[in-house]
């Protein structure tokens, strides 16, 4: 009996090692993610769902805000939390069309606003151009571009630029729901959830989000209910989407809803 258990264990370890090897091989074939580094979310449920055990750097990511909110607050804050934890702390170029980004709010998310360079462009074409320029510059840690839609060729250009200089790119979609095919490595959707009331305290509790991984190269779509990131956890070098309350694959969630 014990022998069978041991054999099973050995087979399991061998399987895990083989899987790790394959993952390495795939990552190498993809040409990014390994040497450029990974930013872990420090939430095992999320990191475990990503083939890189975290957010791969030197790649392009898409983030959108769920629902018809004009504010885009949750997606912006999620992104600010990621930017705040990038190392080394080089400048971040944030390209936008509407100047509604509020620096104190970013500072509260833990982002040192002295790192931030804002670029206001008249149209989407210029934003994509500026993003590509930024991604090819070694001076930056990350480039953010706020656009309404991202075409396949544009995303392909940005992904190649991100790979070439090791700068991480983020496309922040101002209008959610236009999920087109793109060359980005991941696509996220952040939805607000009613806050978790703190016992005995009136008013707004801890903000909560549903973080959906809509698309992930080499991974499965998933969704998690998490607490929003804030500055309190900024000392750790992780994206502080802590305390995954309920994690389940996105497919299951849809089935349950239907």
């Amino acid at each position, binding site marked *: 009996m014990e022998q069978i258990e041991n054999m099973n264990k050995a087979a399991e370890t061998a399987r895990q090692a083989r899987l790790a090897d394959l993952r390495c091989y795939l990552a190498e074939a993809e040409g990014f993610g390994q040497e450029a580094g990974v930013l872990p979310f420090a939430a095992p449920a999320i990191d475990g769902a990503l083939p890189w055990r975290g957010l791969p750097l030197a790649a392009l990511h898409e983030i959108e805000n769920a*629902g018809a909110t004009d504010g885009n*607050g949750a997606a912006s804050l999620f992104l600010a939390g990621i930017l705040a934890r990038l190392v080394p702390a080089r400048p971040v170029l944030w390209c936008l069309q509407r100047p509604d980004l509020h620096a104190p709010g970013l500072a*509260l998310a833990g982002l040192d606003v002295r790192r931030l360079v804002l670029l206001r462009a008249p149209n989407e074409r210029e934003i994509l151009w500026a993003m590509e*320029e930024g991604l090819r510059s070694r001076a930056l840690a990350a480039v953010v571009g706020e656009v309404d839609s991202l075409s396949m060729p544009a995303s392909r250009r940005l992904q190649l630029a991100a790979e070439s200089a090791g700068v991480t790119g983020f496309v922040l979609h101002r209008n959610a729901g236009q999920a087109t095919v793109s060359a980005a490595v991941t696509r996220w959707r952040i939805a607000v959830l*009613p806050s978790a009331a703190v016992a005995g305290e009136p008013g707004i509790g801890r903000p909560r*989000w549903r973080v959906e991984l809509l698309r992930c190269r080499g991974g499965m779509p998933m969704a998690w209910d998490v607490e929003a990131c804030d500055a309190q956890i900024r000392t750790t070098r992780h994206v502080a989407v802590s305390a995954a309350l309920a994690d389940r694959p996105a497919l299951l969630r849809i089935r349950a809803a239907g």
Partner: protein
Amino acid sequence: MEGIAPGMGVADARALDPSLLVEEADFIADAAALAKLAQWCDRFSPWVTSCGADGILLDVTGCAHLFGDEAGLTRRAVARLARQGIDARAAIADTLGAAWAISRFGGAAALTVPRGSVAQALAALPVAALRLESEIVALLERLGLQRIGELYSLPRAALAARCGDSVALRLDQALGLAAEPLSPLPPKPLLWSHRSCSEPIVTAEAIAAALRELLQHLTRCLGEDGLGVRRLSLAAYRIDSRVERIAIGTAFPSRDTRHLWRLFEEKLERIDPGLGIEDLVLTAESVEKLAAAQLGLDGEVARSDSADLAALVDRLANRLGMRALARPVLRESHIPERAVRFVAPLAEPQTPARWNAAQLRPIRLLPRPEPIEAMAPIPDDPPRLFRWRQRAHRVRHADGPERIAPEWWRQPGPSAPESRDYYRVEDEEGQRFWLYRAGFYHTDSTPRWFLHGFFG
């Protein structure tokens, strides 16, 4: 000191005041100082040169209106020089000779001779005012010709026969009857590089190749002088005698051929070659000191993040304008609109990046607060329901109020803005907004509510 005057012997002057300090005259240094002063005068006119040992000539044609009028120009020039401790006298006249004479013999610090009345103004001046050698002045005086006016009626031929050609020439020059060109000081040397094409070029590739060659030449020159360029312009002379120009600017002085080339590349398509370009001139319009870079052991210039960032900023600003780029700086102000100041993208950040965590602020702030319809039945309570952009939001939870009073010292008086009571509210979906009520609560008027920002 009473009695001491120019032209007096040192011994005589010492007899009057034994404590007199005597210095040897240094004519070379004087001339250099005068040339420097002439260069300084180019703020009044671009056409400037020093004249003799003690004068500066300016051609102010078309410049006087910048200072009001001609009298304003002379007044300004004399006052500016007086501030430097220079006792100057200035005159404006139709001719160079007349201005020379009147500034030295006119008897006032600043004089302007009205147009056409030079002869009248000169008539009463001594003949020495005609820029003549001292022997000739003495000769004229021996002949009884004391004043310039007395020369007017004499026949020029007789005058030349008696006193030599110079009297008649100087007189004609002063009266404007003979031409006297003024050669200005050479302008500050510009760094430029020039290329003539053996055959007119039309294609974009040929223009690009020529420009690259020009850039290489210019950056080599800049390197030799330890300079970097801040503004560069390219002029393309077409065979139909039209000139196409493009210019670039940099945030930091640069002489990196690759970087400058990339800035030009963006604009090169704006050059319309027409039937062909025969000459290309690249001019460094503005240069600054730039120390030589240290080569690393591998022979490459060490990369630095700040230089990379400057290069990126240049490329972005070159296309979108310098005003498109900014760096936010937190400012100690409770007024949300004033809490952020924008500085140049390469400005050295001074202020700390910390924000008081007790003051929760939204991540997106509307540039202008938008009015909303709000239902707030209880005074000084957050609204129960509000309508923004045709959508109703039922408030489930709320924090506040946070009263933000206007900065009364900025806009005192009745026009001062109202104080605002801010609330952080969450609707039934979980969206978190930043609302405020303008002014204090009054029972007799309906309060006005605004939406100002969005939390994550």
